[in-house]
């Protein structure tokens, strides 16, 4: 069975015969593993048995551009140095004081955006191909700063509704142009903090429900599966995720959520992905402790299926290599043992 088929079976509620896994890795951890195993960056992901093949539309950010880069939204990113942590390398944004009077939103219709993704898919044919797209909340705050955006959700509603409309249109246009061969779209957002949602569920329903209704519908219209990522505690949104028909949700951070309870309540209705803490044992424990926690997490989360095993969030760059290798070996044995 291919890794792609295992994920598809899982999403369909069938039993692939083992628990698939996927590790999110920082670029530097990928390089460390590549050096350890003797592969290049793409090859090591394949070797460690990752079931998902992450692909990205070209906005320039995820290319290895040294120094500062200004994307099509006018947001400035620092992609150099230690900032291989994804979208948190933002250093400046184009909109100040809610003034959009001279701003033109990108429409997402430019050509050639998926050229690299197509080449990557041709190289690795065994995996479940996932196009990662930044969600409307994150895109919104990239244009105007986190603080102003959240303040605006309360006191500048007309402006924020406009922003959501524009970025939703952009996202839907990106999805429209996704090439053949992609299996799913994974929307990337940050809705939660360690202790709950970052903003009220009422605000989520006001701004994000209409946006995501459109986005998820667009994804499904392309025959693709819907994956949703959010950091933090999003327990209060799980019923909405099920209602909106999300197929796979991650990261299921155990430091922030009661993942056993989540599994119990929603595990039949949606595939849970993640669940293994990446903030504690992996970077700070021993290989034996990592394996023990992995086994314990697997036992809870894989009951009844509909689970993709993996760390919740990226494995930190400085995690001891022996811990990561132990986890890789553990995961690769799951298929062999039929666990």
């Amino acid at each position: 069975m291919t890794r792609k088929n295992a994920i598809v079976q899982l999403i369909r509620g069938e039993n692939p015969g083992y628990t698939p896994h996927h590790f999110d890795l920082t670029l530097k951890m990928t390089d460390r593993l590549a050096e350890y195993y003797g592969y290049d960056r793409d090859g090591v992901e394949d070797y460690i048995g990752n079931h998902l093949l992450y692909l990205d539309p070209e906005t320039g950010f995820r290319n290895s551009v040294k120094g500062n880069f200004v994307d099509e939204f006018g947001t400035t990113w620092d992609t150099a140095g230690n900032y291989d942590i994804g979208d948190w390398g933002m250093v400046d944004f184009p909109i100040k004081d809610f003034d959009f009077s001279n701003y033109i939103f990108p429409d997402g219709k430019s050509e050639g955006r998926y050229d690299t993704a197509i080449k990557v898919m041709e190289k690795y044919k065994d995996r479940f191909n996932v196009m990662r797209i930044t969600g409307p909340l994150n895109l919104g705050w990239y244009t105007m700063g986190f603080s102003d955006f959240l303040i605006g959700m309360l006191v500048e509603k007309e402006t924020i509704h406009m922003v959501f409309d524009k970025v939703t249109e952009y996202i839907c246009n990106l999805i429209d142009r996704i090439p053949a061969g992609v299996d799913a779209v994974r929307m990337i957002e940050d809705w939660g903090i360690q202790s709950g949602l970052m903003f009220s569920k009422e605000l989520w329903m006001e701004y994000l429900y209409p946006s995501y209704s459109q986005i998820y519908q667009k994804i499904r219209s392309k025959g693709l599966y819907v994956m949703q990522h959010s950091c933090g505690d999003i327990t209060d949104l799980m019923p909405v995720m099920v209602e909106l028909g999300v197929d796979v949700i991650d990261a299921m951070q155990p430091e922030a959520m009661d993942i056993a309870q989540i599994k119990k309540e929603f595990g039949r209705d949606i595939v849970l992905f993640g669940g293994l803490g990446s903030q504690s044992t992996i970077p700070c424990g021993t290989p034996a402790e990592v394996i023990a926690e992995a086994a314990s997490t697997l036992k809870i989360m894989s009951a009844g299926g509909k689970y993709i095993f993996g760390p919740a969030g990226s494995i930190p760059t400085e995690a001891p290599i022996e811990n990561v290798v132990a986890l890789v070996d553990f995961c690769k044995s799951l298929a062999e043992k039929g666990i």
Partner: protein
Amino acid sequence: MSIFNEISENLQQGKAKVVKELVQQAVNEGYPAKQILEDGLLAGMTIIGEKFKNNDIFVPEVLVAARAMNMGAALLKPYLMEAGVKASGKVCIGTVKGDLHDIGKNLVKMMMEGRGLEVVDLGTDVAAEKFIETAREQDCQIICCSALLTTTMGMMKDVVAMADGAGIHANTKIMVGGAPVTESFCSKIGADKYSADAVSAADAAVEICRNLIIERTSKGSVGSV
């Protein structure tokens, strides 16, 4: 309703312009600046802090309240200076070297300012030397370090070591926080206080500053607080 309650209520609702007008009105009516600050602005932020801690409100509500407080506080500042009213303590805060996450740090800053502390915000990606240099130059009672990544929290150890090396650790306490940070990590690196959330951090900072004042007073030393 007293004007202080009106200031507090409108601050909690994030009505920044109204808060500013009410603060001006209170000044015009002859109320002491310190009382306007404490019974109006800080009282409102204290309620906001408790509600946030109890998950009754969320980050946007805290941000709009803080914005209202800052607008009122900015208007009050010259009157406070004229009356010789000083902050109850001074903190320099930042996210450690290599870390760009500032949500938590910004919330801590707002809560600390809401408790009457003066906060020097060093931003993100702050080198250990910068924390020490600022604490020294601005006579801070507290260095407050934030980290969201396990890869960067180790930098907090450098801050502690540098504070020890510079001989300032006795009079400048080091607070740490952030998602991967724990009480045991705090003890292990020799920091003074770990806080799990922004409100607790503000409470702890107020207590630390108060204790340092008492210590300084009992030793007969004269400082900025």
